[in-house]
């Protein structure tokens, strides 16, 4: 049985639906990537899973159990953590306070939480040295790390990462992606919504392509990486570019012929 399943899900923001008839499944221990252009509906899909949006119709199943009606807080307790797009850290609070809020729903004692902080700081050494600093003064990349770390504080089974590479320096992006693999190896299932399709598919097990509110393609990440449609539309290479090149080359050829 998959860890999480979406069945014929239709969802939107109080107006016309943004996503229609979405079927998607996540198996435990996978990295699954959502690939799609800006505005395709990736973030909407992630929000529907974390409970920020209520579906118009269809089902969200966790361990085969319907969780449509659960609030974000309850889903968090069930093990779904959402690291939102644009980081959304608490800028005026310190790193330590941000991390502690990540475990807000956790009723365990302060010591267990301190251990959790220690573990997260091991994954993110840069945060460990700056626990007392105000988070808003960090660079974009460090804020992204903090956002992921904060998401991990609730000991999630499923981590939803929405555009973690957005506005992050390329070197740090590579580090974030390595970290995602490491988290998977620790047993966390990961759903990664990314515009940066090549890097995301490179570390993923499977992928879904979202276009205009529909899932248009799905399959193993390797296959998607190699498929011509993906290469053309999301990887910036492929036949279309070549075609136009040969086209213009031919035009140039004809032009030359005319002149001479």
């Amino acid at each position, binding site marked *: 049985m998959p860890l999480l399943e979406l069945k014929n899900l239709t969802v939107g923001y109080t107006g016309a639906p943004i996503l229609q008839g979405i079927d998607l499944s996540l198996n435990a221990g996978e990295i699954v990537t959502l690939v799609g252009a800006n505005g395709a509906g990736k973030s909407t899909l992630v929000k529907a899973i974390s409970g*920020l949006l209520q579906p118009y119709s269809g089902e969200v199943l966790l361990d085969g159990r319907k969780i449509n009606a659960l609030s974000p807080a309850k889903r968090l307790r069930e093990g779904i953590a959402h690291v939102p797009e644009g980081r959304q850290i*608490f800028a005026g609070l310190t790193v330590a306070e941000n991390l502690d809020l*990540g475990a807000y729903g956790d009723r365990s004692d302060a010591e267990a939480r301190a251990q959790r902080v220690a573990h997260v700081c091991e994954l993110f050494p840069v945060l460990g040295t700056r626990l007392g600093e105000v988070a808003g003064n960090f660079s974009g990349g460090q804020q992204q790390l903090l956002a992921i770390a*904060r998401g991990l504080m609730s000991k999630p089974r499923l981590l939803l990462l929405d555009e973690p590479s957005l506005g992050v320096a390329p070197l740090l992006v590579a580090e974030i992606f390595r970290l995602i693999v490491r988290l998977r190896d620790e047993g966390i299932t990961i759903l990664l919504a990314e515009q940066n399709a090549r890097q995301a598919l490179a570390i993923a097990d499977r992928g879904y392509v979202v276009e205009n509110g529909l899932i248009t393609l799905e399959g193993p990440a390797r296959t998607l990486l190699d498929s011509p449609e993906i290469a053309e539309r999301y990887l910036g290479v492929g036949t279309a570019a070549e075609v136009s090149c040969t086209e213009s080359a031919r035009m140039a050829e004809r032009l030359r012929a005319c002149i001479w």
Partner: protein
Amino acid sequence: MIEFLQICVGGLVVGSIYALIALGFSLIYRVTGAVSLAQGGFSVLGALIGYTLSQTYGWPLFLAIPVAVLATVAIGAGLGAISFVPALERLSNANVLMLTVGLLTAIEGLCLVVWGSQPYALPPFSGESPARIGPLLVPTQAFWVVAAAAAVIAGLWVLITRTRLGRALRACAENPTAASLMGIGVKRMTLLSFGLATLIAAIAGVVVAPTTTLQFDTGRLLTISGFIAVVIGGITSFPGAVAGGLLLGLTTQLATAYVSTLFSNAIALLILLFVLVWRPNGLIQAKVAGRADVREGGRVHGHVARLQPNVAWIAVTVALAVALAVPLLVTSNGIMSGITIAMILFITLIGLDVLMGYTGQVSLGQAGFMAIGGYTSGYLTIVHDVAPVLSILAGMALSLGCALVLSMVTLRLRGLYLALATLAFGLLVDSFAVGFVDITGGPSGMVGIPSFSVGGYEFASPRAMYYLVLGINVVLLASFFGAMNSGFGRALRAIRTDQTAAAALGINIVRYKLVAFAISALLASLSGSLYAFFFNFLSPDMVGTNRSLELVSMLVIGGEGTLVGPLFGSLLITLLPTVFQPFALYKTLLSGGLLVVCFLYLPQGLYGALAERLARLSLGRPARAGGAELIRSTPR
């Protein structure tokens, strides 16, 4: 020296109360990003409940006081849950502020209905005889006040900085979306902060009650003082709120003692305006500024339903015919006067609508310009025998001058601070009206203002005055309808919707705001003069801050951004107490309640609802853009 120390002790006591109220403001602001002006109302409510329990039912004070505080918190939390919390999701912060004006008015109205308008005082908690510290005589209640303030400050500090709950409250302030992802119930936290602020306000109310007398509308003064204190100190900082409160308390007490009783408020207000210009974020500022989601922008309007041209002409003709026939149909002089007053106020409202409804600039001091116009006209006609028309023009010129000076402050401000600066202006005019006894007649008012007259014809009766004002209104409406549908009106609405985008389009924001502000000041001044001529009398409370807030209620209840809409609000609020005498007692409660309800459920006011109905009738299908839609754009 002893006298000085004695005054400082008084200042400390008053300052502690201001600091408590200011803390409540700061708490709600830090959690929600919005301001609730209902604070002072809860203080008075708490004190009055305490009075009833201890004096009427004879409960001992140690029982009556805590029960009164808890009862107030329960009422406050209930009111917050049905008004403030849902409003936060739907309204811009400036409109939430206005909604809480309605809440404050409703609470005052409630107190008026239950306790009447006489003043009350609680007995001091520990006896009447003052304590002697060296040469100083200190009333024992002063210790209670200062101790209560210290306890609340310490408690709040521990809660906010040392507990997980406090951390969650701050998280909501920083970023509500992320907070809900962390599993924090943002609505619950909002309500909690509102309840806590109510608790603080109620404590302030019961400890201050023995040192002074409280009546149903004292809350307004407390709210205003607390608001001023929190802005002087810096709303994002608790130490700032406390410092602002103490500073304000000491300043007003010292000014009262050494300068003049009548001008102590004016001095405090001048300090405030100075702070607003010099350090608009207050004396003590937060380390990291800015919330992720500050909603300074105006409420996103669905379009007010537009009538088909032919229907519109019929409506205009019918309306004019009715307006002309009113004096013939209405036989009661009282009602006729009421209608005339509503029409006079409508002149101010047209200007206020241009300023608030179209340009999105909050003004809580519009009656200040009415006062300038009214007093100028009165003074010139009584003392210098100037012709009324000229005196009106003189008042308008003076108002324009004041508006230009004030705009040096207001043009730099938006939202909350703009609201405060205009409020301060209204209060300033108010305190000058009270203070310059020789010119204005002081608190008891200016008597013997002649009726309006032109070339020997005197508009003495309500009916004559009615036709005069009707004429003015028709001319104003016609010209502003034209202006608002021209490039000028579109530029104003662009500024309201998105100031930055408007600037990017090349709209000269400063100029348009200035013009809108000047228009509103001129019209308010004109209306103030006519008001004075109509009553043959003018007193500070006729054109004070209460009037300013009432004008805003009229505007919102009638319908912002519609020009004609405010007339409905004006008629309703002015006539209800006249037509139904028993309603007089309920007027305050009703207008406050109506304001809250309109903000929440009738965003286009009575006129908007009516226009939609008419448009639907004339088209036989729903009006364009679905009328009462209330959408806050959601980021995708």
